[in-house]
């Protein structure tokens, strides 16, 4: 049942590096992260890799497997042929620290820049009241495990470092949508979504949705509705008419 898999792993640091070949034992039911751990324990003790829960709940072990952004703990070795060479490289959209570990600070910076949740007052008895149907929309987005695979795959920033300052990426545009749909939040977040976080740069190719390990419909349920709400704000007929007439008067 056990066999030797051919692994090609990127090793190096911020100054450079390259792919190295390894033969590693694989047993039934194992995932890519198991094989990386075996590689560490037997052949490359200093191989750098981030991981925590090994159950698809924490979003730490993100990497690119044969060029596709994946969680290593949820990628079963059984999905590859035994003869296939499996290439594992660090996330391309972020600077490498060492081996498979990248500097994901970009994401934490974007998280910090989003205006925080600003709730309405509690009811008189000290409780908040919300209906299940109303919390479910934002609950979907709060399933996000912050693996940043969507950030890695999004073509707006993947090979466009220059877009990073003006674009928050799918994860954080979804966070803005989550707050906007939150039954208790009192801020109007539409202008900031468009002007400060680059919602307009998203052209809904759904790459983010495809790589999401939680199966969140980022594009359909967060980004598109948010775009519609931004448009509503800009072109609510009365406001729009008012502005247009106003301009003509000028």
């Amino acid at each position: 049942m056990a066999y030797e898999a051919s692994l090609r792993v990127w090793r190096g640091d911020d100054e450079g590096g390259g792919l190295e070949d390894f033969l590693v034992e694989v047993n039934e039911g194992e995932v890519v992260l198991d094989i990386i751990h075996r590689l560490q324990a037997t052949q490359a003790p200093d191989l750098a890799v981030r991981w925590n829960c090994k159950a698809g709940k924490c979003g730490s072990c993100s990497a690119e497997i044969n060029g596709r952004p994946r969680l290593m703990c949820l990628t079963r070795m059984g999905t590859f042929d035994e003869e296939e060479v499996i290439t594992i490289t660090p996330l391309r959209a972020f600077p490498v620290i060492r081996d498979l570990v990248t500097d994901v600070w970009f994401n934490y910076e974007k998280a910090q820049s989003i205006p925080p949740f600003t709730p309405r007052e509690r009811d008189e008895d000290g409780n908040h009241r919300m209906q299940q149907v109303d919390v479910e929309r934002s609950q979907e987005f709060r399933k996000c495990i912050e693996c940043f695979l969507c950030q890695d795959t999004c073509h707006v920033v993947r090979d466009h470092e220059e877009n990073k300052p003006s674009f928050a990426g799918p994860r954080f545009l979804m966070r803005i949508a989550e707050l906007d749909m939150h039954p208790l939040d009192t801020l109007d977040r539409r202008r900031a979504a468009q002007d400060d976080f680059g919602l307009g740069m998203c052209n809904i190719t759904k790459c983010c949705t495809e790589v999401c390990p939680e199966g969140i419909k980022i594009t359909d349920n967060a980004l598109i509705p948010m775009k519609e709400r931004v448009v509503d704000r800009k072109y609510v007929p009365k406001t729009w008419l008012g502005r247009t007439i106003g301009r003509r008067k000028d």
Partner: protein
Amino acid sequence: MTDLERHAYDVVVIGAGGAGLRAAIEAHEQGARTAVVCKSLLGKAHTVMAEGGIAAAMGNVYPEDGWKVHFRDTMRGGKMLNHWRMAQLHAQEAPDRVRELEDWGALFDRTPAGLISQRDFGGHRYARLAHVGDRTGLELIRTLQQRTVALGIDVYMECTVTKVIKQQDGSIQGAFGYRRENGRFVLWQAPSVVLATGGIGKSYKVTSNSWEYTGDGHSLALQAGATLVNMEFVQFHPTGMVWPPSVRGILVTESVRGDGGILKNSNGSRFMFDYIPDYFRKETAETEEEADRWYTDKKNNRRPPELLPRDEVARAINSEVKAGRGSPHGGVFLDIASRHDADYIRKRLPSMYHQFKELAEVDITKEPMEVGPTCHYVMGGVEVDPETAAAKVPGLFAAGEVAGGMHGSNRLGGNSLSDLLVFGRRAGLAAAERARATTVPNVADAVLKEAAGEALAPFERDGGENPYTLHAELQTAMNDLVGIIRVAGEMTEALERIEALKVRAKALTVEGQRPYNPGWHLALDLPHMLRVSECIAKAALEREESRGGHTRDDFPGPREEWGALNVICSADGEDVALTRQPLPVMPPDLAEIFEES
């Protein structure tokens, strides 16, 4: 020292799980300059793995629930070995701690009236767990993380603390550690240090715990002169995955049983009916019919035995497997497929559905899961003052899993998330208060040089063993010899193996350089795991009875004299010393609660 980053704070919190973040938020709100130091990225702490919910007697589903009922359930679940005052504060304050999470953005599932919904769990008399599907831990960590960021609290991500630094007078002066990214040393000078480092599961082979659970806080506290209590009590969660081997130990939430899932052996029999202890007989259903009626009519029926406290269920599964009635891969069957339709299961247990589909290619809406016990939680931890979470060292505090006393000999499901909120807040409050009245002098260079030298030692040696080998041997020893069922001979053997590993660990070597080097990181975690394992094995050998998470084949059943005693661990040079200490006595007005039932 030149190769060193120095910071000065009022409060330094080690650990960014629920307890650490809640402590930091409180310390910050009290006006303390606060830092959080964590081994992983922010938001990845082990709290994300918690699935079921936060236990709090809010009375949203059962108005007859209240803190006294929750207190009673907690003490009975812990077989009365809990520190009564911790259990009381916990039951009284949990509802407020849950409500404030909503002010910070948490979105719990709702009741029809729009209030926070509450679900059933083992050992709780009423449906009491505030939850979000089966991913409550993620909701908790994200809420606290976002609050921490909104308040602008400094977070030092991917840093490991190797030493707690003390002044000449024995009080806390700060924490010393390194950045995992580049291996550079950091000093966080502060009069208050809060330990919130979680548990010890990585000393066991089959565990639901992540790599971070290496007992750092337990070990740092011991080395600083603090004491540990209840270390013999390790919770084996009854339902971990057993197949395939690479996922063995990963948690299957108790909510599966709370929502109607039943346990069966290879004969198809609901074996839990054969394992109802006298202690819980009055409140447990005797027939399958009564158990099934309970899900819809809780007032007129008693609870199914699948929802007995975790220690009872874990032992029962262990016995079934030993008797040859196990599932093909050495567990038992957990069946929800025959109990509910597929839509209901996917809605109530989305991450379990996902986990089995992805990791085991099992569709839980169509077939039963295979499950078995897994090392999940340590009840034991730093001995603290219930009001302030202060350890025996002035300036040192501990909250969450790293603290002991709250859960006695066995923790009820859902009581962990509430524990870390209640005592995280109390620790942050007391740490800030102490800092207000205390200043610390600069740490001397010689102290820093010594700490740096200790951390770099594995690089200086040649020809020693690799830390991965030693770690695997420790995990096997603890799993096989100090596991769910214990006997004196095996524990003595475990202690001999630990002694030998301690010698070998002093000689181990690491390859490579300081930047992001997992071999080096493990080499520094290993002494912590060895120290904690020694505490568990020694305390377990000392306690000659069976109670909660401690089962002795050679001393079956509880013994009255042990019901009033705690085993306390302290450091004795490089060894662990034990003392027996009387349990704090509950005041009469609380003791009455137990006479009624």
